[in-house]
């Protein structure tokens, strides 16, 4: 049994300059109340690791708009012209990572691996500065693990011990990020008693979750 805290209280735990792993894909499956709370608290100089920076005014796009992000490690910024503008002006550093590589780097960080070998990116600008490793005659890039200070996850339902269940395409990076940060904060849409989410339906075990955000206001 754990206590749910407000998004504002969770934002207080996060200092300026933190590295945040934030779930979501174009805002779907992103912890929207946590993002609002970070903006409300005036957090800045953040490093954000996420699939994308959404669009202006939506999810991570809101953090971009207020200039809270110093560095973004993402696979896609095409739908957010503000990210592109801040990248060009030098306000924000952007590291573009192929999506499948990004998720495996985070997974490696979370599951105690020293990196991953992938053929994705060979022969492209992605390979610059990276070690190539040959395995059974095939070339791979050594991609290094990513870890965060905090993971901010969105889930469909949580139970009282923090077990998480996700909905449809709102899974995306959330289950993987749950392993890869010092402190893991989950923002469920609703919280249900123990037993309501059957063990087989739990995608992220509650033992990985440090803080549960209160349910969405009715």
């Amino acid at each position, binding site marked *: 049994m754990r206590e749910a805290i407000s998004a504002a209280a969770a934002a207080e735990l996060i200092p300026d300059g933190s590295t945040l792993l934030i779930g979501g*894909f*174009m*805002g*779907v*499956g992103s912890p929207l109340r946590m993002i609002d709370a970070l903006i409300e608290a005036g957090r800045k100089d953040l490093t954000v690791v996420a*699939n*994308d920076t959404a*669009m202006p005014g939506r999810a991570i796009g809101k953090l971009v708009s207020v200039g809270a992000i110093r560095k973004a490690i*993402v*696979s*896609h*910024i*095409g*739908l957010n012209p503000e990210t*592109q503008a801040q*990248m060009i002006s030098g306000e924000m550093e952007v590291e*573009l990572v*192929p*999506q*499948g*590589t990004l*998720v*495996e780097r985070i*997974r490696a960080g979370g599951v105690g691996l020293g990196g991953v070998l*992938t*053929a*994705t*990116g*060979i*022969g*492209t*600008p*992605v390979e610059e500065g990276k070690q190539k490793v040959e395995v059974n005659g095939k070339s791979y890039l050594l991609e290094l693990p990513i870890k965060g200070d905090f993971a901010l996850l969105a889930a*469909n339902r949580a139970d009282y011990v923090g077990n998480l269940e*996700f*909905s*449809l*395409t*709102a*899974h*995306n*990076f*959330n*289950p*993987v990020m749950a392993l890869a940060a010092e402190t893991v904060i989950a923002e469920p849409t609703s919280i249900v008693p123990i037993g309501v989410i059957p063990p087989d339906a739990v*995608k992220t075990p509650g033992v990985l979750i440090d803080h549960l955000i209160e349910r969405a206001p009715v």
Partner: protein
Amino acid sequence: MNPKERIARRVALEVQPGSLVNLGIGLPSMVANYLPEHVDVFFQAENGVIGLGARPPEGMEDPNLTDAGGGFVTAVPGAASIDSAMSFGIIRGGHLDMTVLGGLQVDQRGYLANWMVPGKMVPGMGGAMDLVAGAKRVVVAMVHTAKGTPKIVPECALPLTAERRVSLIVTEMAVIEPTEKGLVLREVASDSSVDDVLAATSAELIVDEPPAEMTLA
């Protein structure tokens, strides 16, 4: 018929029954409109669903069910929702039968560039590099020229998406198959001639036997 519809109708013929297919955003996503109604195909959206369905009726969208472009979709019976590690494991691990992607340039070697124009457009590669590196077949669906400038070129000037020979190039003028020997002209549209295609292509095309007329779904 506009060029994009023609391209989508031709690519639709490449979709094999029983296969798992990933369609890129934009033109490639139109391919789904031209498949036989009960064809046994699952579409994957790399943001996390196998069994992508049509757009839902207005007002009945599920905010947690979108395609990789963020547009609302449905899921077909038998669909599965997956996280990004599973999704890209399927792509990279050789479990995806075909991907259809747009292209900025394809070259003589069959290499594709489709994710950035230095100094102009840097949207990020998203899932494109994993898709091209990992799918069993890669079909490039694109208009033949960029306002008259050839897109099928001797060597890509734009940064590559992957160092992999794509399987097929489908344009509104022609169907071209990159092979070990080079780019083979397989089909020409009914309103184009071989010479038209050669004139609109700066890469060398191999025309061994008279190409067939392009057929459409």
